[in-house]
Protein backbone atom coordinates (compact mmCIF):
# COMPACT_ATOMS: atom_id res chain seq x y z
CA UNK A 1 0.00 0.00 0.00
CA UNK A 2 1.25 3.46 -0.90
CA UNK A 3 0.76 6.78 0.86
CA UNK A 4 -2.73 8.20 0.74
CA UNK A 5 -4.06 11.74 0.51
CA UNK A 6 -7.01 12.86 2.68
CA UNK A 7 -9.23 12.45 -0.41
CA UNK A 8 -8.32 8.76 -0.89
CA UNK A 9 -11.64 7.33 0.44
CA UNK A 10 -13.58 9.69 -1.83
CA UNK A 11 -11.64 8.57 -4.88
CA UNK A 12 -12.51 4.97 -4.09
CA UNK A 13 -16.14 5.93 -3.43
CA UNK A 14 -16.28 7.67 -6.83
CA UNK A 15 -15.13 4.46 -8.55
CA UNK A 16 -11.62 5.66 -9.37
CA UNK A 17 -9.08 3.31 -10.84
CA UNK A 18 -6.20 3.72 -8.38
CA UNK A 19 -2.55 3.41 -9.41
CA UNK A 20 0.82 3.85 -7.77
CA UNK A 21 2.20 7.30 -8.53
CA UNK A 22 5.57 8.07 -6.95
CA UNK A 23 4.70 5.93 -3.93
CA UNK A 24 1.17 7.33 -3.58
CA UNK A 25 -2.14 5.59 -4.30
CA UNK A 26 -3.68 8.05 -6.76
CA UNK A 27 -6.68 8.01 -9.14
CA UNK A 28 -5.73 7.60 -12.81
CA UNK A 29 -9.36 8.06 -13.92
CA UNK A 30 -12.93 7.70 -12.65
CA UNK A 31 -14.30 5.90 -15.73
CA UNK A 32 -13.31 7.95 -18.77
CA UNK A 33 -10.09 9.93 -18.95
CA UNK A 34 -11.30 11.66 -22.11
CA UNK A 35 -14.57 12.83 -20.53
CA UNK A 36 -12.58 14.18 -17.56
CA UNK A 37 -10.29 16.02 -19.96
CA UNK A 38 -13.27 17.59 -21.78
CA UNK A 39 -14.87 18.58 -18.46
CA UNK A 40 -11.85 20.77 -17.67
CA UNK A 41 -11.69 22.29 -21.17
CA UNK A 42 -15.42 22.95 -21.42
CA UNK A 43 -16.71 23.38 -17.86
CA UNK A 44 -14.87 22.54 -14.63
CA UNK A 45 -13.01 19.68 -12.97
CA UNK A 46 -11.24 19.02 -9.69
CA UNK A 47 -8.01 17.12 -9.28
CA UNK A 48 -6.51 15.98 -5.98
CA UNK A 49 -2.82 16.87 -6.12
CA UNK A 50 -2.15 16.54 -2.40
CA UNK A 51 0.67 14.12 -3.17
CA UNK A 52 2.74 17.14 -4.22
CA UNK A 53 5.16 18.49 -1.64
CA UNK A 54 4.60 21.88 -0.01
CA UNK A 55 7.70 23.51 1.48
CA UNK A 56 7.62 26.80 3.39
CA UNK A 57 10.78 28.88 3.43
CA UNK A 58 10.93 31.69 6.01
CA UNK A 59 13.56 33.88 7.61
CA UNK A 60 15.43 37.06 7.01
CA UNK A 61 17.51 35.53 4.18
CA UNK A 62 14.56 33.84 2.46
CA UNK A 63 14.71 36.05 -0.62
CA UNK A 64 18.50 35.80 -0.94
CA UNK A 65 18.34 32.04 -0.46
CA UNK A 66 15.72 31.47 -3.15
CA UNK A 67 17.59 33.78 -5.55
CA UNK A 68 20.57 31.43 -5.00
CA UNK A 69 18.52 28.21 -5.24
CA UNK A 70 16.39 28.95 -8.32
CA UNK A 71 17.13 29.85 -11.95
CA UNK A 72 14.12 32.13 -12.13
CA UNK A 73 14.46 35.25 -10.00
CA UNK A 74 12.22 35.61 -6.94
CA UNK A 75 13.18 39.30 -6.93
CA UNK A 76 10.42 39.49 -9.56
CA UNK A 77 7.91 38.66 -6.83
CA UNK A 78 7.53 42.28 -5.79
CA UNK A 79 4.18 41.95 -4.03
CA UNK A 80 2.49 39.65 -1.58
CA UNK A 81 0.96 36.55 -3.20
CA UNK A 82 2.81 36.74 -6.52
CA UNK A 83 3.97 33.41 -7.97
CA UNK A 84 6.50 32.19 -10.49
CA UNK A 85 7.52 28.95 -12.11
CA UNK A 86 11.19 27.94 -11.86
CA UNK A 87 13.53 25.07 -12.41
CA UNK A 88 15.94 24.16 -9.61
CA UNK A 89 19.35 23.27 -11.08
CA UNK A 90 22.48 21.45 -10.04
CA UNK A 91 25.93 23.00 -10.57
CA UNK A 92 26.06 21.52 -14.10
CA UNK A 93 22.83 23.32 -15.02
CA UNK A 94 20.89 20.02 -15.01
CA UNK A 95 17.30 20.24 -13.83
CA UNK A 96 16.75 18.75 -10.34
CA UNK A 97 13.08 19.66 -10.32
CA UNK A 98 10.58 22.29 -11.40
CA UNK A 99 8.38 24.11 -8.95
CA UNK A 100 6.10 27.03 -8.26
CA UNK A 101 7.16 29.59 -5.66
CA UNK A 102 4.58 31.87 -4.03
CA UNK A 103 5.56 34.96 -2.09
CA UNK A 104 4.07 35.39 1.38
CA UNK A 105 3.27 38.54 3.32
CA UNK A 106 6.85 39.87 3.02
CA UNK A 107 10.01 38.85 1.22
CA UNK A 108 10.91 36.85 4.33
CA UNK A 109 8.37 34.12 3.60
CA UNK A 110 7.74 31.97 0.54
CA UNK A 111 5.98 28.73 -0.27
CA UNK A 112 7.31 26.19 -2.77
CA UNK A 113 5.29 23.40 -4.34
CA UNK A 114 7.59 20.68 -5.69
CA UNK A 115 7.00 17.27 -7.29
CA UNK A 116 6.23 14.21 -5.19
CA UNK A 117 8.58 11.82 -7.02
CA UNK A 118 11.53 14.15 -6.28
CA UNK A 119 10.55 14.97 -2.69
CA UNK A 120 13.42 13.28 -0.85
CA UNK A 121 16.07 14.52 -3.25
CA UNK A 122 14.64 18.06 -3.21
CA UNK A 123 14.41 18.33 0.57
CA UNK A 124 18.02 17.15 0.96
CA UNK A 125 19.22 19.54 -1.73
CA UNK A 126 17.29 22.51 -0.33
CA UNK A 127 18.59 21.80 3.18
CA UNK A 128 22.19 21.55 1.95
CA UNK A 129 21.94 24.73 -0.12
CA UNK A 130 20.38 26.67 2.76
CA UNK A 131 23.21 26.12 5.24
CA UNK A 132 24.81 29.51 4.59
CA UNK A 133 21.49 31.38 4.88
CA UNK A 134 19.36 32.42 7.82
CA UNK A 135 16.22 30.55 6.79
CA UNK A 136 13.91 27.91 8.14
CA UNK A 137 12.76 25.25 5.66
CA UNK A 138 9.66 23.36 6.68
CA UNK A 139 7.75 20.67 4.80
CA UNK A 140 3.97 21.02 5.23
CA UNK A 141 2.63 17.47 5.23
CA UNK A 142 -0.47 18.80 6.99
CA UNK A 143 -1.69 20.50 3.80
CA UNK A 144 -3.74 19.21 0.88
CA UNK A 145 -3.90 20.70 -2.63
CA UNK A 146 -7.06 20.70 -4.73
CA UNK A 147 -6.76 21.97 -8.30
CA UNK A 148 -10.11 23.32 -9.55
CA UNK A 149 -9.66 24.04 -13.24
CA UNK A 150 -11.81 25.00 -16.19
CA UNK A 151 -13.72 27.98 -17.60
CA UNK A 152 -16.32 27.76 -14.81
CA UNK A 153 -13.86 27.07 -11.98
CA UNK A 154 -13.91 30.51 -10.38
CA UNK A 155 -17.69 30.50 -9.91
CA UNK A 156 -17.55 27.14 -8.16
CA UNK A 157 -14.75 28.19 -5.83
CA UNK A 158 -16.51 31.46 -4.99
CA UNK A 159 -19.50 29.44 -3.78
CA UNK A 160 -17.25 28.04 -1.02
CA UNK A 161 -16.17 31.46 0.26
CA UNK A 162 -17.64 34.30 2.31
CA UNK A 163 -17.79 37.87 0.96
CA UNK A 164 -14.24 38.56 2.08
CA UNK A 165 -12.97 35.40 0.35
CA UNK A 166 -14.86 36.23 -2.84
CA UNK A 167 -13.34 39.68 -3.02
CA UNK A 168 -9.88 38.27 -2.44
CA UNK A 169 -10.41 35.69 -5.20
CA UNK A 170 -11.79 38.31 -7.59
CA UNK A 171 -8.66 40.38 -7.03
CA UNK A 172 -6.42 37.63 -8.39
CA UNK A 173 -4.88 37.51 -11.85
CA UNK A 174 -2.97 34.46 -13.19
CA UNK A 175 0.14 33.68 -11.15
CA UNK A 176 -1.02 35.42 -8.01
CA UNK A 177 -2.40 34.05 -4.75
CA UNK A 178 -4.21 35.24 -1.64
CA UNK A 179 -4.79 33.86 1.83
CA UNK A 180 -8.33 33.41 3.09
CA UNK A 181 -8.73 32.08 6.62
CA UNK A 182 -6.41 29.05 6.69
CA UNK A 183 -6.58 28.47 2.93
CA UNK A 184 -4.33 29.72 0.20
CA UNK A 185 -6.08 30.46 -3.11
CA UNK A 186 -3.73 30.51 -6.11
CA UNK A 187 -4.46 31.32 -9.75
CA UNK A 188 -2.11 28.59 -10.92
CA UNK A 189 -2.57 25.21 -12.53
CA UNK A 190 -1.27 22.59 -14.94
CA UNK A 191 -4.03 22.58 -17.55
CA UNK A 192 -3.84 25.74 -19.69
CA UNK A 193 -7.28 26.78 -18.44
CA UNK A 194 -8.53 29.34 -15.96
CA UNK A 195 -8.23 27.72 -12.56
CA UNK A 196 -7.55 27.86 -8.87
CA UNK A 197 -5.32 25.70 -6.76
CA UNK A 198 -6.54 25.61 -3.16
CA UNK A 199 -3.89 24.76 -0.56
CA UNK A 200 -5.71 23.99 2.67
CA UNK A 201 -5.48 21.91 5.85
CA UNK A 202 -5.75 18.23 4.97
CA UNK A 203 -8.64 17.65 7.38
CA UNK A 204 -10.72 20.32 5.61
CA UNK A 205 -10.10 18.94 2.11
CA UNK A 206 -12.65 16.07 1.97
CA UNK A 207 -15.59 18.40 2.77
CA UNK A 208 -14.47 20.80 0.05
CA UNK A 209 -14.13 17.93 -2.43
CA UNK A 210 -17.64 16.72 -1.53
CA UNK A 211 -19.20 20.17 -1.89
CA UNK A 212 -17.58 20.86 -5.24
CA UNK A 213 -18.34 17.46 -6.76
CA UNK A 214 -21.94 17.63 -5.44
CA UNK A 215 -22.21 20.98 -7.25
CA UNK A 216 -21.23 19.32 -10.55
CA UNK A 217 -17.45 19.74 -10.60
CA UNK A 218 -16.08 16.62 -12.33
CA UNK A 219 -13.45 14.57 -10.49
CA UNK A 220 -10.38 14.45 -12.74
CA UNK A 221 -7.69 11.79 -12.48
CA UNK A 222 -4.00 11.98 -13.17
CA UNK A 223 -4.54 10.56 -16.67
CA UNK A 224 -6.53 13.59 -17.81
CA UNK A 225 -4.20 15.88 -15.89
CA UNK A 226 -1.38 14.52 -18.07
CA UNK A 227 -3.17 15.13 -21.40
CA UNK A 228 -4.29 18.58 -20.21
CA UNK A 229 -0.76 19.65 -19.34
CA UNK A 230 0.62 18.18 -22.57
CA UNK A 231 -1.93 20.10 -24.67
CA UNK A 232 -0.90 23.18 -22.66
CA UNK A 233 2.73 22.52 -23.65
CA UNK A 234 3.87 22.11 -20.05
CA UNK A 235 6.75 19.79 -19.22
CA UNK A 236 6.45 16.84 -16.86
CA UNK A 237 9.48 16.44 -14.65
CA UNK A 238 11.14 13.04 -14.98
CA UNK A 239 9.72 12.61 -18.47
CA UNK A 240 10.38 15.77 -20.52
CA UNK A 241 13.33 16.93 -18.43
CA UNK A 242 15.66 15.68 -15.74
CA UNK A 243 19.18 16.20 -14.40
CA UNK A 244 20.77 15.40 -17.79
CA UNK A 245 19.32 18.47 -19.52
CA UNK A 246 19.31 22.24 -18.96
CA UNK A 247 16.37 24.66 -19.25
CA UNK A 248 17.71 25.68 -22.69
CA UNK A 249 17.32 22.08 -23.83
CA UNK A 250 13.84 21.90 -22.29
CA UNK A 251 11.90 24.75 -23.92
CA UNK A 252 11.89 26.72 -20.64
CA UNK A 253 14.51 29.37 -21.39
CA UNK A 254 11.91 31.91 -20.20
CA UNK A 255 12.44 30.64 -16.64
CA UNK A 256 16.14 31.54 -16.60
CA UNK A 257 17.14 35.02 -15.37
CA UNK A 258 20.88 35.56 -15.88
CA UNK A 259 21.02 39.34 -15.53
CA UNK A 260 22.09 40.51 -12.09
CA UNK A 261 21.34 37.05 -10.72
CA UNK A 262 23.77 34.45 -9.35
CA UNK A 263 22.31 30.99 -8.70
CA UNK A 264 23.28 27.35 -8.71
CA UNK A 265 23.94 26.36 -12.32
CA UNK A 266 24.26 29.94 -13.63
CA UNK A 267 27.88 29.52 -14.80
CA UNK A 268 27.01 26.52 -16.93
CA UNK A 269 23.92 28.23 -18.36
CA UNK A 270 25.91 31.33 -19.31
CA UNK A 271 28.34 29.09 -21.21
CA UNK A 272 25.53 27.21 -22.92
CA UNK A 273 23.75 30.42 -23.84
CA UNK A 274 26.86 31.51 -25.75
CA UNK A 275 27.68 28.12 -27.25
CA UNK A 276 24.07 27.23 -28.03
CA UNK A 277 22.12 24.27 -26.61
CA UNK A 278 22.91 21.00 -28.40
CA UNK A 279 19.28 19.88 -28.36
CA UNK A 280 15.82 21.40 -28.27
CA UNK A 281 12.55 20.30 -26.73
CA UNK A 282 9.85 20.94 -29.27
CA UNK A 283 6.29 20.08 -30.23
CA UNK A 284 5.17 17.46 -32.75
CA UNK A 285 1.77 17.02 -34.32
CA UNK A 286 0.54 13.97 -36.22
CA UNK A 287 -2.81 14.50 -37.91
CA UNK A 288 -3.06 10.98 -39.33
CA UNK A 289 -4.30 7.97 -37.36
CA UNK A 290 -2.16 6.66 -34.52
CA UNK A 291 -0.77 7.83 -31.21
CA UNK A 292 2.68 9.28 -30.54
CA UNK A 293 4.10 7.93 -27.29
CA UNK A 294 7.13 8.53 -25.09
CA UNK A 295 10.44 7.07 -26.40
CA UNK A 296 9.32 6.62 -30.00
CA UNK A 297 12.32 7.63 -32.17
CA UNK A 298 12.12 10.73 -34.39
CA UNK A 299 13.79 10.75 -37.82
CA UNK A 300 14.84 13.35 -40.39
CA UNK A 301 15.24 11.27 -43.52
CA UNK A 302 16.95 8.03 -42.45
CA UNK A 303 18.79 9.74 -39.59
CA UNK A 304 17.46 9.47 -36.03
CA UNK A 305 17.47 13.01 -34.62
CA UNK A 306 15.86 12.45 -31.23
CA UNK A 307 12.96 10.90 -29.43
CA UNK A 308 9.54 11.69 -28.05
CA UNK A 309 9.52 12.55 -24.35
CA UNK A 310 5.72 12.76 -23.90
CA UNK A 311 3.05 11.81 -26.39
CA UNK A 312 -0.69 11.32 -26.31
CA UNK A 313 -3.93 11.49 -28.21
CA UNK A 314 -5.16 15.06 -27.75
CA UNK A 315 -8.86 14.91 -26.86
CA UNK A 316 -9.33 18.59 -27.73
CA UNK A 317 -7.66 18.37 -31.16
CA UNK A 318 -8.67 14.75 -31.95
CA UNK A 319 -5.18 13.86 -33.14
CA UNK A 320 -1.90 12.99 -31.56
CA UNK A 321 0.55 15.51 -30.10
CA UNK A 322 3.94 15.11 -28.48
CA UNK A 323 6.94 16.81 -26.97
CA UNK A 324 10.23 15.57 -28.39
CA UNK A 325 13.86 16.31 -27.74
CA UNK A 326 15.73 16.71 -31.04
CA UNK A 327 19.28 17.51 -32.06
CA UNK A 328 19.54 21.25 -32.55
CA UNK A 329 20.52 20.75 -36.20
CA UNK A 330 17.51 18.60 -37.06
CA UNK A 331 15.65 20.17 -39.97
CA UNK A 332 13.50 19.19 -42.89
CA UNK A 333 10.69 16.67 -42.95
CA UNK A 334 10.36 14.75 -39.72
CA UNK A 335 8.84 11.34 -39.13
CA UNK A 336 8.23 9.14 -36.12
CA UNK A 337 8.76 5.41 -36.21
CA UNK A 338 5.75 3.64 -34.73
CA UNK A 339 6.12 -0.13 -34.51
CA UNK A 340 8.62 -0.07 -37.35
CA UNK A 341 6.58 2.13 -39.70
CA UNK A 342 7.41 5.79 -40.47
CA UNK A 343 4.67 8.35 -39.82
CA UNK A 344 5.19 11.98 -40.97
CA UNK A 345 4.88 14.60 -38.21
CA UNK A 346 4.96 18.39 -38.17
CA UNK A 347 7.14 20.32 -35.77
CA UNK A 348 5.25 23.06 -33.93
CA UNK A 349 5.86 25.50 -31.11
CA UNK A 350 3.94 24.46 -27.99
CA UNK A 351 1.47 25.09 -26.43
CA UNK A 352 -0.99 23.11 -28.54
CA UNK A 353 -4.14 24.27 -26.73
CA UNK A 354 -4.97 27.27 -24.53
CA UNK A 355 -8.37 28.05 -23.08
CA UNK A 356 -10.03 25.28 -25.02
CA UNK A 357 -8.71 26.36 -28.44
CA UNK A 358 -5.99 25.15 -30.80
CA UNK A 359 -3.10 27.62 -30.63
CA UNK A 360 -0.07 25.82 -32.03
CA UNK A 361 1.95 27.34 -34.83
CA UNK A 362 4.37 25.66 -37.22
CA UNK A 363 7.96 26.06 -36.11
CA UNK A 364 9.93 28.04 -38.70
CA UNK A 365 12.97 25.97 -39.49
CA UNK A 366 15.14 24.80 -42.38
Amino acid at each position, binding site marked *: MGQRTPIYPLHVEAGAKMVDFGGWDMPI*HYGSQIEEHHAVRRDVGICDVSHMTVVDVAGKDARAFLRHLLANDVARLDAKGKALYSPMLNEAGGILDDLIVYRGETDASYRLVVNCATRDKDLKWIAAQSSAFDVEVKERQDLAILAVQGPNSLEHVKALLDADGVSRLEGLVPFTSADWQDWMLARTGYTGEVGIEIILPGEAAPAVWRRLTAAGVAPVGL*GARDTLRLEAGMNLYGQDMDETVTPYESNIAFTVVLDDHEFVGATRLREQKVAGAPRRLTGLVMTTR*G*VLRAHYPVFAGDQQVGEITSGA*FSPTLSHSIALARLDQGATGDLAVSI*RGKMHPVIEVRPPFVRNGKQVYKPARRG
Partner: protein
Amino acid sequence: MAEFPGDLKYAESHEWARLEADGTITVGITDHAQESLGDVVFVELPEVGTELDAKAEAGVVESVKAASDIYAPVSGTVTAVNSKLEDEPETVNESPYDDGWFFKLQPKDVGELDSLLSADEYETVCENEEDH
Protein backbone atom coordinates in the same frame (compact mmCIF):
# COMPACT_ATOMS: atom_id res chain seq x y z
CA MET B 1 -16.72 -5.34 -12.46
CA ALA B 2 -16.03 -6.68 -15.90
CA GLU B 3 -18.60 -8.92 -17.58
CA PHE B 4 -17.80 -12.41 -18.91
CA PRO B 5 -20.75 -13.62 -21.04
CA GLY B 6 -21.11 -17.39 -20.81
CA ASP B 7 -21.92 -17.93 -24.51
CA LEU B 8 -18.53 -16.68 -25.74
CA LYS B 9 -15.10 -18.28 -26.03
CA TYR B 10 -12.03 -16.37 -24.91
CA ALA B 11 -8.32 -16.12 -25.75
CA GLU B 12 -5.73 -15.45 -23.05
CA SER B 13 -4.72 -12.42 -25.12
CA HIS B 14 -8.14 -10.91 -24.23
CA GLU B 15 -10.13 -11.41 -27.43
CA TRP B 16 -13.57 -13.01 -27.42
CA ALA B 17 -15.00 -15.19 -30.19
CA ARG B 18 -18.66 -15.90 -30.95
CA LEU B 19 -19.86 -18.56 -33.37
CA GLU B 20 -22.72 -17.07 -35.42
CA ALA B 21 -25.63 -18.94 -36.98
CA ASP B 22 -24.09 -18.49 -40.47
CA GLY B 23 -20.92 -20.32 -39.39
CA THR B 24 -18.73 -17.19 -39.15
CA ILE B 25 -16.94 -16.19 -35.98
CA THR B 26 -17.19 -12.63 -34.64
CA VAL B 27 -14.16 -11.32 -32.75
CA GLY B 28 -13.72 -8.43 -30.35
CA ILE B 29 -11.85 -7.50 -27.19
CA THR B 30 -13.23 -8.32 -23.77
CA ASP B 31 -14.81 -6.03 -21.22
CA HIS B 32 -11.81 -6.69 -18.97
CA ALA B 33 -9.48 -5.64 -21.81
CA GLN B 34 -11.30 -2.38 -22.57
CA GLU B 35 -11.40 -1.56 -18.86
CA SER B 36 -7.69 -1.99 -18.41
CA LEU B 37 -6.88 -0.12 -21.67
CA GLY B 38 -9.03 2.88 -20.79
CA ASP B 39 -10.58 5.09 -23.49
CA VAL B 40 -9.92 3.65 -26.94
CA VAL B 41 -8.84 6.36 -29.43
CA PHE B 42 -7.93 4.43 -32.61
CA VAL B 43 -8.54 0.95 -33.95
CA GLU B 44 -6.59 -0.61 -36.83
CA LEU B 45 -8.54 -3.44 -38.43
CA PRO B 46 -7.43 -6.19 -40.83
CA GLU B 47 -8.52 -6.01 -44.47
CA VAL B 48 -11.40 -8.14 -45.66
CA GLY B 49 -10.00 -11.22 -47.38
CA THR B 50 -6.92 -11.45 -45.15
CA GLU B 51 -6.08 -15.01 -44.14
CA LEU B 52 -5.07 -15.26 -40.52
CA ASP B 53 -3.58 -18.09 -38.51
CA ALA B 54 -4.69 -18.56 -34.93
CA LYS B 55 -2.74 -16.18 -32.68
CA ALA B 56 -1.58 -14.08 -35.67
CA GLU B 57 -1.66 -10.29 -35.38
CA ALA B 58 -4.94 -9.03 -36.76
CA GLY B 59 -4.96 -5.38 -35.78
CA VAL B 60 -4.06 -2.79 -33.18
CA VAL B 61 -6.09 -0.98 -30.57
CA GLU B 62 -4.70 2.32 -29.32
CA SER B 63 -6.04 3.68 -26.05
CA VAL B 64 -5.15 6.68 -23.91
CA LYS B 65 -2.82 4.30 -22.09
CA ALA B 66 -1.13 2.04 -24.62
CA ALA B 67 -1.08 0.40 -28.04
CA SER B 68 -2.07 -3.29 -27.99
CA ASP B 69 -2.00 -5.88 -30.71
CA ILE B 70 -5.18 -7.80 -31.47
CA TYR B 71 -4.77 -11.48 -32.35
CA ALA B 72 -6.97 -13.85 -34.28
CA PRO B 73 -8.36 -16.36 -31.76
CA VAL B 74 -8.76 -19.03 -34.48
CA SER B 75 -7.51 -19.48 -38.05
CA GLY B 76 -9.66 -18.17 -40.87
CA THR B 77 -10.39 -15.56 -43.53
CA VAL B 78 -11.62 -12.08 -42.63
CA THR B 79 -15.11 -11.66 -44.10
CA ALA B 80 -16.13 -8.35 -42.51
CA VAL B 81 -14.73 -5.57 -40.33
CA ASN B 82 -16.56 -3.12 -38.08
CA SER B 83 -15.80 0.13 -39.91
CA LYS B 84 -17.87 2.05 -37.35
CA LEU B 85 -14.85 1.80 -35.05
CA GLU B 86 -12.82 4.06 -37.34
CA ASP B 87 -14.98 7.07 -36.50
CA GLU B 88 -16.34 5.97 -33.15
CA PRO B 89 -13.58 4.03 -31.39
CA GLU B 90 -15.28 4.70 -28.05
CA THR B 91 -17.81 2.03 -29.08
CA VAL B 92 -15.21 -0.52 -27.94
CA ASN B 93 -15.50 0.86 -24.39
CA GLU B 94 -19.26 1.30 -24.49
CA SER B 95 -20.23 -2.05 -25.99
CA PRO B 96 -17.29 -4.46 -26.11
CA TYR B 97 -19.42 -7.57 -26.80
CA ASP B 98 -21.94 -6.12 -29.30
CA ASP B 99 -21.52 -2.86 -31.24
CA GLY B 100 -17.79 -2.84 -30.46
CA TRP B 101 -16.93 -6.05 -32.38
CA PHE B 102 -13.74 -5.88 -34.49
CA PHE B 103 -14.00 -8.38 -37.36
CA LYS B 104 -15.62 -11.59 -38.57
CA LEU B 105 -13.76 -14.70 -39.69
CA GLN B 106 -14.76 -17.62 -41.84
CA PRO B 107 -13.00 -20.26 -39.74
CA LYS B 108 -10.72 -22.83 -41.31
CA ASP B 109 -11.71 -25.36 -38.65
CA VAL B 110 -14.55 -24.44 -36.34
CA GLY B 111 -13.18 -27.07 -33.93
CA GLU B 112 -10.37 -24.66 -33.02
CA LEU B 113 -12.94 -22.85 -30.87
CA ASP B 114 -12.74 -25.74 -28.41
CA SER B 115 -9.13 -24.86 -27.64
CA LEU B 116 -10.20 -21.41 -26.37
CA LEU B 117 -11.17 -20.64 -22.80
CA SER B 118 -14.66 -20.73 -21.32
CA ALA B 119 -16.00 -17.65 -19.52
CA ASP B 120 -15.08 -19.13 -16.12
CA GLU B 121 -11.58 -20.08 -17.24
CA TYR B 122 -10.99 -16.65 -18.72
CA GLU B 123 -12.28 -14.89 -15.61
CA THR B 124 -9.70 -16.84 -13.60
CA VAL B 125 -6.96 -15.67 -15.99
CA CYS B 126 -8.04 -12.05 -15.41
CA GLU B 127 -8.15 -12.47 -11.64
CA ASN B 128 -4.64 -13.92 -11.61
CA GLU B 129 -3.44 -11.01 -13.75
CA GLU B 130 -4.80 -8.52 -11.26
CA ASP B 131 -2.99 -10.30 -8.42
CA HIS B 132 0.36 -9.63 -10.06
